[in-house]
């Protein structure tokens, strides 16, 4: 079938009309073959303009459309929609930017006209090579796998589970609740009591749309967003395996605590009555704050930032729970002296500082110190430290509570390998974009929530798990098909030599290798169409739809005329 190109130049009022000699261009173009119509129009993006275009496409039976107007950022989508409505494949259209990148930057009309002509010719030559790309639709599985039965995982399960959406909650240990279950209580502005946790756990267990798999771990993951295939292994016996299919995965594996034994200066494990935060939480919970000798402590030192230097980051929550400890000590033990040894008070939440003032009022002493050394001194514990101005100080106490850094949960690395998602230099899971997309990973459909991606307080963990749900609920809708990007890469098999360079450069792991054929394969459901693989392939065996070599060469050639 012969080609009928329609070329339309938008005057954009005076913006293009006054600065480019449109008539001259119309004149030059009419000679080109394959061109059915060349016209100018006052303002194509106006409603009249759009209607005009639609009619032209129909009446002139155009097979290809070139519009010379403003930047594609402004109206490419507008005009693609016009094409679609008028029955022309929107990818058989090329928008040529003669406003921002021509009319507006070149004051000499002659020159501007010359450049505009180049651009428009390029557009015409390019559009001839366009393919009528078709939108693809993918069936997807609405179910979700949640890894980790802590507070984040529980939250997520509850907000996702519904009759149309099954949730599989996989927990490594034998019980749900994670670290929160070990706590004595939360902070005032979080609501101190913990009964809510048991309530939520009950809800989860009673929800028929949630399958709870305790003492289990993810063994293997295949597939992609909308269609993951998961193998889950029981910790009780290796033979017990379960295969499930889900559309998305939330990683909520939580954290571990830094082992103070790695920093001997704190005397943990060697000096009596030096305990870490979790042990102290349990003391509070059991309401037995006692020294080894069974007596209650008279002087307690709370040491912040244990392991911060070694790990290279602030764990965010320690300052606050240390305050909680101080408050509890003051409330429970009438004549106890409490000292907080801190390096920086990290109180980012709006109500944190009030809490700090409140605790301070109770007579808790705050010492900004570093280079802390904890030594045994006959019956007591002696703390040596330096002040911010390098002055030496020391203090004798009978109990020390260490607040260790929050570190990645064990097996984080292993899980990262199984899921094929990256870790950052601190060993936590890496967000695809720390700022703009804090719960997503490079693998679409795999999300991270809570302390799996770094230290967070309970509220933030809850928020993140709900955020992951937000993402899933908005794009993985039961019965709705996925519409992946159309302008993606494809492998030209007869040229692919199987060197697999493309696999190593693809950030999204959209390319796999077909051992049998010996060629690479692009998964169009994952590919985002950046073209990095095309750039990496010496054989030119990868084609980025709509940005193929020939199409780009056409533009280059016109540039060189």
């Amino acid at each position, binding site marked *: 079938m012969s080609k009928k190109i329609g070329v339309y130049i938008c005057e954009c009022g005076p913006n293009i009309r006054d600065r480019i000699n449109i008539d001259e261009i119309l004149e030059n173009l009419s000679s080109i073959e394959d061109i059915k119509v060349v016209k100018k129009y006052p303002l194509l993006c106006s409603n009249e303009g759009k209607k005009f275009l639609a009619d032209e496409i129909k009446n002139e039976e155009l097979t290809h459309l070139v519009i010379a107007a403003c930047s594609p950022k402004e109206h490419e989508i507008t005009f693609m929609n016009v094409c679609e409505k008028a029955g022309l494949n929107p990818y058989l259209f090329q928008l040529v930017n003669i406003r921002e990148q021509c009319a507006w930057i070149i004051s000499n009309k002659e020159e501007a006209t010359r450049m505009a002509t180049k651009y428009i010719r390029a557009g015409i030559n390019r559009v001839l090579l366009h393919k009528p790309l078709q939108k693809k639709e993918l069936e997807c599985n609405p179910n979700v796998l949640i890894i980790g039965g802590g507070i984040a995982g529980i939250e997520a399960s509850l907000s996702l589970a519904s009759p149309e959406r099954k949730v599989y909650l996989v927990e490594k240990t034998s019980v749900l609740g994670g670290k929160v279950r070990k706590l004595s209580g939360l902070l005032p502005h979080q609501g101190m009591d913990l009964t809510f946790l048991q309530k939520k756990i009950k809800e989860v267990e009673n929800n028929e749309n949630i399958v709870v798999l305790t003492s289990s771990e993810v063994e293997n993951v295949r597939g992609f967003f909308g269609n993951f295939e998961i193998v889950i292994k029981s910790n009780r016996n290796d033979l017990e395996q379960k295969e499930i299919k889900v559309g998305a995965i939330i990683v909520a594996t939580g954290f571990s605590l830094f082992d103070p034994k790695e920093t001997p200066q704190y005397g943990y494990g060697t000096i009596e009555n030096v305990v870490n935060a979790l042990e102290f939480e349990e003391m509070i919970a059991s309401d037995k704050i006692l020294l080894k000798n069974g007596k209650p402590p008279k002087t307690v030192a709370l040491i912040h930032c244990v392991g911060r230097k070694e790990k290279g980051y602030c764990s965010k929550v320690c300052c606050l729970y240390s305050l909680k400890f101080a408050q509890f000590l003051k409330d429970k033990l009438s004549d106890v002296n409490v000292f907080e040894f801190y390096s920086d008070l990290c109180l980012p939440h709006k109500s944190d500082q009030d809490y700090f003032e409140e605790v301070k009022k109770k007579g808790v002493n705050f010492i900004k110190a570093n280079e802390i050394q904890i030594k045994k001194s006959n019956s007591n514990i002696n703390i040596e430290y330096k002040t911010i101005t390098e002055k030496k100080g020391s203090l004798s106490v009978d109990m020390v509570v260490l607040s260790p850094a929050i570190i990645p949960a064990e097996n984080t690395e292993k899980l990262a390998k199984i899921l094929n998602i990256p870790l950052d230099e601190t060993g936590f899971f890496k967000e695809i974009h720390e700022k703009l997309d804090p719960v997503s990973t490079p693998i679409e459909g795999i999300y991270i929530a809570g302390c799996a991606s770094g230290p967070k307080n309970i509220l933030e963990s809850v928020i993140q798990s709900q955020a992951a749900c937000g993402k899933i609920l908005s794009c993985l809708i039961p019965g709705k098909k996925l519409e992946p990007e159309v302008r993606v890469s494809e492998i030209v098999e*007869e*040229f*692919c*030599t*199987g*060197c*697999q*360079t493309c696999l*190593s*450069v693809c950030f999204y792991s959209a390319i796999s290798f077909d051992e049998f054929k*010996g060629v690479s394969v692009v998964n169009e459901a994952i590919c985002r169409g950046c073209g990095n693989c095309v750039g*990496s392939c*010496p*054989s*030119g*065996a990868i084609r980025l739809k709509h940005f193929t*070599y*020939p199409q780009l*060469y056409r533009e280059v*050639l016109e540039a*060189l*005329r």
Partner: protein
Amino acid sequence: MSTVQNEFFKKPKKGAVLHAEGGIHKAILDFLRKSLEKKCFDALFIPVKVHDTDSYVWVLLKDKSLLNEANPLPPVISVQGGRALSTLTKHGEMNLQIAAIMRPCEIRAVIELFKLKQVSLNNITLISIDCPGAMPLSDYISNPKEMAKRFNNLFETWEENESLRPICIICHRFSLSSLLPSISRQSASVELEGIDSPASDIHIGLVGGNGEKIFLMPVSSKGEEILEKLEIATEDSLEDWEIKEKELRDKKENKRKKILQELKAKIEGPKKFVAVFDQCINCHNCMRVCPICYCRQCYFDSKTLRLSPEVYLTRAKERKSLRFPLDTLLFHLGRMSHMVLSCVSCGVCEDACPMNIPIAQVFCIVADQVQKSFGYVPGRDRREPPPLRFFQEDEFQEVEMQYKKTISREETQNA
């Protein structure tokens, strides 16, 4: 960052010194024969002289008797060993144990092709040999006897010899040193797997033996096992070889600098560079024989670059004239940009050029610079990833037009 030193250098440098009464070729062949008998491997991959001719071909050899025809170090490189081994191993696994004996430049090509998934090294034992160089194919074909004689004289003296290929005269990677891992700055950030990754498993040293003895050294643990199996004790000192090898390498490195500098002066700059490739007839032989050019179809042969006649006419009008065949220079520069990081300077391209373009030497000049700037030595380490497969965040900042900075600087001065 793992900087695994390979087995060979963990110990004081020792190996087996074998006496070569019947000449070094015989000594090497005896060793190979023995290892076949002892079932160290089922077959050899080795150059064999074709009956009643002077030409050599690669042969997958199972029958020991044929060994007499084999020549582990023929006077010419007719087909690059890397290319040959790729054809043998690329498609599918095999259950045979095979030993391939090759020149260092061929071994390095094998390793590059291994990284590019064009060679499988399962069941392959690589044996490298000190290489005195090779004769230009054309010269050899025109006078094989004489050339073979001159070639064999090299083994006593190892002195340079003008009838060698120019690329061999300046080859500083003729021995083991270029086949041993040493993790470079650039690839240091990349996780390297496996403990033991030298290019070859066993190396046969010839320099310093004056043609009377050969030096047998296990390089990888695999190599060690084989020599153990053969009950070859590797406790002799390698001093003679080491000293001579070092001496020869230094000498060649200096020569290399000098000669390449002279050549560079002859080819640099658009005018001279164009002149060098003027004679190119676009046969693309250089690409077809190159072991690194592994593409099924060369991008510059593909129809992607073909344009319609009227486009050629416009271009001709534009530039007054248009030369056919088209894009000759584009081919050479393009090919260079594709393979020069992995170029092992084996010289087969030059051998294959019907127009005697010093292409191997030109590529050599570029390869030296480029590989240096990427801290990459092709074929040195089986684990070292090809440079275009990874990046570091804080590298090559100089290649970007540092415009922002200059602006703010100017301002600071203006103030």
